């Protein structure tokens, strides 16, 4: 009878299911959030990318001048290029400029005197030849006449052209290129050390019967609660020029790669530890039983069972750490000394030299390793999932005194390192004047007497963190719901998914700089949010979007996919299902996303350092600025304020989670 053959559909059209209200509303919501991601992420990045290809140069051949004598009789017109040729005022180097560049016209006229009666005329000889009279922009091929006093206020403006000159300039500048090497160097070293240390720690937590596991876990998580630059401050106190343990370095300087690596290990440790612990905890007891029954030695079992089963976790952790280190800006700023890295170069080009185009070039260079690491990590994550099988038997460690003692020793070393760094910061914050007056005082907490924003900065940070947690969680969760539970619309969903994953590949510095290009453009209708709290919230939500999105997706995928069809068949709109079932069931994940957003908003420096204004200074940026201004103790004190706040927030979150779980998740208990 009918056997599988080369049958094909009869001719005709694929019928389209009419959209119902749910379908329209879902698409609308997804569209809005996709639009958000487009405006807050894709367009700024595009603006930055295109900026990196724009070169500004003063085109002297485009201007002509005429100078009169005292009797106002004009001489022959002469081009600016000829004048420069003759006088050699501006070098070719000086003619390269940035979008903000200005060239004083009078420099081309050595005999200029602003009191003389001489008149000047100038005009453009090309279509685009801009200049400024004071602040008044001019661009014309008609002769304009100025008296000496006005002529002194004339500045030539550069014209833009598109090309790879910025990149050529970048790669021909040895001091800039050496940053690439430096960045790769410290990122690689830090990655190796962190992953090894974290593997030992995670192994001790999940594979031994060591005591005090929960305490160790708690200590290992502490670095997440502070800005990445805080360990830098502690290291200055320990090993700096007046450091307590300076002699331990035998003359080496902590300022430079050494300090960056130690600090990087500190702040990336928890990230690696979480990933590796997860990888180790999904191993299968049965494999170990098989190894034992085959009389494999413990050493052999370790290399043939433990390490391979955790390999995806190790790879993933390595890439995460690598990306964190190479994109981090706070730590090298505080303790890097003269050692330049990519993230610092962006900051220097933008804040120091106002060379936005070169900043954009460095950003693109920094984007390359970050995107590569991101892609590899995603591939590995996909494989990790497939390792899990429902029938795996969880591993139960057995006591082994020697192994357990070794594990305890290792965890103690790590814990002392982490807790020690925090303790040193606390100590620094409370000491009156290191190293001369060691009495305790709270004067370092009197932030209002220091530059950097004072207590207002702290309050701003709290506001930013609360807004980011509230708004961010809402946007992220709704976006994840729409992309997961919409019917059909495949292209749209794939596009949305791409936009939602993109932030993870974009370093904070790059995002911040991209925002300057995009939002600071007067032609942008969104320009008014520049310099407000809004742009800080938008940038922070966007910067940390991906992890929240993945958390929400994981929770949503665990919900029965047939809830929506059931609700539809019962004639109920999806938002009733969303409010009454989806959100309550996913509440633990929602709380997780919100605390993640809160903590990161408190500690982040990289994106917001370009975006804050005097009214919206932030605590984390204040740490940076106070350190820069030499108020290291106050910087430590502000860092500790962030630590207290985040610790309190986490405790509150744990408490709330437990209560919410008890109240709304009663159904989980049998």
């Amino acid at each position, binding site marked *: 009878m009918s056997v599988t053959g080369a049958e*094909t559909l*009869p001719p005709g059209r694929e019928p389209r299911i009419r959209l*119902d209200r749910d379908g329209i509303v879902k698409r609308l919501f997804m569209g809005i959030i996709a639009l958000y991601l487009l405006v807050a992420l894709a367009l700024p990045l595009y603006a930055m990318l295109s900026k990196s290809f724009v070169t500004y140069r003063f085109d002297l051949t485009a201007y002509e001048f005429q100078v009169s004598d005292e009797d106002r009789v004009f001489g022959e017109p002469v081009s600016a290029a000829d004048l420069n040729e003759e006088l050699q005022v501006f070098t070719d180097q000086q003619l390269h400029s940035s979008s903000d560049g200005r060239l004083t016209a009078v420099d081309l006229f050595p005999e200029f005197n602003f009191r003389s009666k001489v008149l000047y005329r100038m005009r453009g000889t090309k279509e685009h030849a801009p200049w400024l009279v004071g602040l008044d922009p001019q661009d014309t091929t008609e002769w304009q006449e100025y008296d000496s006093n006005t002529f002194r206020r004339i500045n030539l403006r550069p014209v833009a052209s598109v090309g790879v000159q910025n990149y050529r300039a970048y790669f021909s500048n040895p001091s800039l290129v050496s940053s690439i090497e430096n960045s790769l160097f410290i990122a690689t070293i830090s990655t190796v050390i962190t992953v090894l240390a974290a593997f030992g720690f995670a192994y001790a937590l999940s594979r031994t019967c060591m005591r005090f596991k929960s305490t160790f876990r708690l200590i290992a998580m502490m670095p997440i609660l502070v800005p990445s630059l805080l360990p830098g401050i502690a290291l200055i106190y320990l090993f700096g020029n007046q450091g307590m343990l300076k002699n331990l370095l035998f003359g080496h300087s902590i300022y430079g790669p050494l300090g960056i690596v130690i600090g990087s290990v500190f702040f990336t440790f928890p990230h690696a530890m979480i990933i590796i612990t997860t990888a180790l905890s999904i191993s299968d007891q049965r494999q170990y039983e098989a190894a034992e029954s085959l009389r494999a030695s413990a050493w052999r079992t370790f290399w043939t069972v433990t390490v391979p089963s955790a390999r995806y976790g190790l790879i993933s952790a390595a890439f995460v750490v690598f990306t964190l280190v190479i994109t981090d800006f706070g730590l090298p700023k505080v303790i890097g000394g003269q050692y330049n890295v990519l993230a610092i170069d962006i900051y220097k080009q933008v804040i120091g030299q106002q060379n936005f185009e070169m900043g954009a070039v460095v950003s693109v260079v920094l984007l390359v390793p970050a995107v590569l690491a991101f892609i590899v990590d995603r591939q590995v994550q996909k494989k990790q999932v497939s390792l899990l099988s429902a029938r795996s038997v969880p591993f139960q460690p057995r006591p082994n005194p020697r192994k357990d003692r070794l594990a305890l020793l290792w965890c103690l070393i790590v814990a002392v390192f982490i807790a020690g760094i925090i303790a040193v910061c606390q100590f620094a914050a409370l000491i009156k004047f290191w190293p001369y007056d060691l009495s305790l005082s709270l004067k370092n907490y009197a932030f209002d007497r220091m530059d950097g924003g004072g207590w207002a900065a702290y309050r701003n940070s709290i506001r930013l963190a609360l807004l980011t947690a509230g708004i961010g969680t809402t946007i992220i969760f709704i976006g994840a719901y729409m992309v997961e539970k919409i019917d059909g619309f495949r292209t749209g969903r794939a596009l949305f998914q791409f936009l939602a994953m993109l932030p993870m590949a974009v370093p904070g510095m790059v995002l911040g700089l991209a925002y300057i290009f995009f939002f600071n453009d007067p032609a942008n209708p969104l320009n008014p949010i520049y310099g407000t709290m809004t742009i800080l919230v938008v940038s922070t939500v966007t910067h940390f979007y991906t992890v929240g999105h993945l958390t929400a997706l994981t929770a949503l995928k665990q919900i029965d996919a047939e809830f929506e069809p059931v609700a539809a068949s019962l004639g109920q709109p999806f938002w009733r299902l969303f409010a009454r079932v989806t959100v309550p069931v996913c509440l633990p994940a929602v709380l997780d996303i919100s605390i993640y957003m809160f903590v990161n908003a408190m500690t982040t420096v990289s994106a917001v350092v370009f975006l804050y204004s005097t009214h919206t200074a932030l605590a984390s940026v204040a740490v940076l600025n106070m350190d820069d201004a030499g108020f290291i103790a106050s910087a430590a004190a502000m860092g500790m304020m962030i630590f207290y706040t985040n610790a309190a927030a986490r405790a509150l979150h744990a408490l709330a989670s437990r209560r919410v779980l008890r109240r709304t998740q009663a159904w989980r208990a049998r």
Partner: protein
Amino acid sequence: MSVTTTDAAADPAEPAKTPPEAYLTIRGLWKSFGDFIALRDISLSVAQGEFICFLGPSGCGKTTLLRAIAGLDPQSRGTIIQGGRDVSVLPASARDYGIVFQSYALFPNLTVERNVAFGLENTGVPRAKVTARVAELLELVGLPEQAQKYPAQLSGGQQQRIALARAIAIGPGLLLLDEPLSALDAKVRVHLRHEIKELQRKLGVTTIMVTHDQEEALSMADRIVVMNHGGIEQIGTPTEIYRHPATLFVADFIGETNRVSATLRGGKVALGKAELRAETDLPEGTGVTVAVRPEDILPHAGGHEAAGENRLAVTIADMEFLGSYWRVHLSGEALEGVPLVANFSMNAVRRLRLSVGRAITVELPADRVLLFPESRK
């Protein structure tokens, strides 16, 4: 396996009569996933109040067909008319059905009462009426005590009934059941089978159930749609399907058959040395597959002497006791190595004193010898 003796074959195979008024009509339905054709040219109509089963092996397209009817996986071609209304392009929410999934899809954080009430709330029905209706429904499915519990606190069978109550709460015109019993253990399944059928009869709601379990289909359905490779093999009442399978696939999938290839000569087919007469309209010389159900083979006492139409002299090679009947493996010179399996009732075995090694005569009644034209490969 339902055990029918030949004597009980009295019920005449009723011809599939066209239903008086079709509630659901499907015409020329196709569905493709990329290059894969999941449904091919499905046409079918379901009468008001009828209980229909889609039966077939996994991957035959039965669930795809159900989801197309529900508007969850829209068809690629064809039309679906429900209650006189063309619903082919209507979204799920605009169609009129209640559905029970294999997973039940009960809302875990809502009590049983709130689950059942989910489709009734926000529809302008006063609260008191909703409460009364929920109580009535819980009574109907026999779980009035469980109103305040959460789904996780109920057994699988109870959850199944709650899902059913929720689906029928809104009084749908069509009830769709997607393998509703397959997650349950055997005893509960048999019990619920009966209950669902009762409930359906009481409500008179047109029902379509998807199942891969032939026993379920045979015992519950008014008519069965047997599907294979995305197409319909046969539509008919359970007895039609069982006694007059339209294709070899149906004969094989529902119940068991002994099969052998043969050629039709003078209204007879060869089985080993023996010749069997069969009732057939197939033309002379057709290559056929002969199929005989084990329970249609009748044992006769008295050694090898009893010759007669469609009778074979065989020896009992092996016997397996399967509880309510014996499975008997037959061999014999006449069979020429073709294996033949028969199911004999306990009574027959006892009465005829059958045991391994005994020579007996079996009869393969002409009206029970099924012939299917050999498919040319």
